[in-house]
């Protein structure tokens, strides 16, 4: 469905040298990128900020033209067949509003229907289905500018799917949402993938998004692919360690729990790192409570930046795993 072959994207940037002189230098946003994604996959595209994620997505959607290499999306060349491709894909770019700000939400759908030339029966059926799945009815007549972030994201998702795209690109679809709203977005995407066979490529910083949604992960850093494999494999290797943060009633020496490493002590607060397969947060909490009196606790999940750092320190090249 998506094929990327030795793709590179270079930007020319100008660095200031003195009052008027500027120096030209080239920034390589994406280098030697090669991967392919089969139809029906939900693929997480992850990496730290500035790694080249959005540059890649912009090339896949035809916004940017690659400097070299070959891209094929749904059998089309995005940079040359942008308009043809646009009918077959959908995309949602985080903070950018695709909806008409001052108009009722439903007006945006109506306008997009004409922009995309969606057949009337498809439009009706899709809108009915999405209204139900995303629970849009309470704010369908509300101007977009008055919607909460969660409502707006649901509206945007509906807008992205109205023309029956085969592939959907999502940039941080759950960022800034509360737990309930996140879950609703994830359910919607799962449904789109299962019921409609939509291929999804999403960038995210949220490990839970990845665990819940993705069956494939591509990780990129400094423009290069550094990991290509399954979520389970990635988490087993690098994301398995969680941290329990406990506040004790009285100062204590580093707690000693078998199989758990005490990584930090700061006054009454202690950090305990444990592996997913060794123990659960509940078991560990109980073990701590047997050793000292607990006041408060929190579990820290590893984030993407963490996982990337660990892949780096492990020093191995994992592409093709």
């Amino acid at each position, binding site marked *: 469905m998506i094929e990327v072959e030795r793709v590179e994207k270079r930007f*020319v940037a100008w660095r200031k040298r003195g009052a008027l002189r500027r120096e030209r230098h080239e920034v390589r946003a994406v280098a030697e990128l090669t991967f392919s994604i089969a139809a029906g996959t939900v693929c997480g595209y992850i990496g730290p900020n500035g790694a080249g994620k959005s540059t890649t997505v912009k090339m896949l959607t035809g*916004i940017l*033209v690659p400097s070299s290499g070959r891209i094929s999306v749904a059998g089309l060349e995005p*940079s040359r067949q942008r308009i*043809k491709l646009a*009918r077959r894909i959908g995309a949602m*770019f985080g903070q*950018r509003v695709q909806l008409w700000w001052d108009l009722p939400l439903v*007006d945006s759908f109506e306008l997009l229907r004409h922009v995309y030339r969606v057949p009337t029966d498809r439009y009706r059926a899709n809108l009915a289905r999405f209204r139900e799945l995303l629970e849009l009815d309470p704010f369908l007549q509300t101007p977009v500018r008055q919607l909460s972030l969660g409502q707006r994201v649901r509206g945007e998702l509906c807008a992205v799917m109205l023309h029956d795209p085969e592939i959907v690109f999502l940039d941080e679809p759950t960022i800034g949402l509360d737990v309930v709203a996140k879950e609703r977005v994830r359910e919607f995407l799962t449904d789109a993938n299962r019921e409609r066979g939509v291929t999804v490529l999403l960038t995210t910083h949220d490990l839970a998004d990845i665990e819940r949604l993705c069956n494939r992960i591509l990780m990129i850093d400094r423009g290069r692919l550094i990991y290509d494999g399954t979520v389970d494999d990635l988490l087993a290797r690098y994301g398995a360690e969680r941290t329990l943060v406990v506040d004790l009633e009285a100062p204590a020496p580093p707690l000693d729990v078998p199989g758990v490493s005490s990584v930090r002590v700061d006054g009454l607060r202690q950090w305990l790192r444990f592996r997913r397969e060794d123990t659960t947060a509940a078991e560990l909490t109980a073990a701590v409570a047997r050793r000292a009196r607990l006041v408060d606790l929190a579990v820290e999940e590893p984030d993407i930046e963490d996982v990337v750092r660990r892949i780096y320190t492990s020093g191995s090249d994992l592409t093709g795993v």
Partner: protein
Amino acid sequence: MGDALAVYGRLVSAAIRSQLQYRLSFVLDVVGMFLVASLDFAAVLIIFHNVPRLGTFSVGEVAFLYALSAMSFALAEFVVGHLDLLNEYVRTGTFDVMLLRPRGTLFQVVSADFRLRRLGQLLQGVAVFVYALSVLDIHWNAGRVAMTLLTVICGAVIFSAVWVFVICVVFWTVEGTETANAFTYGGQFLTQYPIDLYSQWLRRLLGYAIPMSFVAYFPALYVLDKEDPLGLPSFLRFSSPLVAVVAVVFAGAMWRFAVRHYRSAGG
């Protein structure tokens, strides 16, 4: 084509509905525009209070030129006036969203808004036109009526094309809007007066580089049945439609070139 027009109609009516959400601000804008534009024409009247003629042009004739230009300009502002927001579209990623949709980018940018608030300017142009007609003694015939109508339309097309052409600078530098405004607003200012007032180099610039003199000057000579004080060939009086077509072709080519640059340079 029919489909594009229908979609344009829908998008523009959506834009107008959005503006009417802020009714008071809209009314104030229209009235304000009318007053500011009227002051502008008052300056012309003050000049004529002191001198009987500008070159070979009487007050009525200048008013006629002024009105043609003002009406064309207001119509162009309706359709493409919001191009001065193109730098915002580019900077905030709205332009990228347009690249994701199955329509041409220029089509989408143009249909993204409609400056209905320029109604004030259009009304002022019409008022000056009525004034010009009351002062002048034009021998109307079918040809002259048609020429007047055609001139306003071609003028609007020429203004729009120049606008599109110069705003493309935004795809290279987001700060380009001011430069572009110098051409569009400055160009419109120049068309309000007979071009024989301007020095030769400025006339060349107007006549050739920026096709502004075809907006009002040449066709007005025909309608007013006037000798060209510059002695330029009379076929120029009928050339506005051709100039409009050429301007549109150039603007379209420039737009495609600029968008291609944007898509490979990455904004």
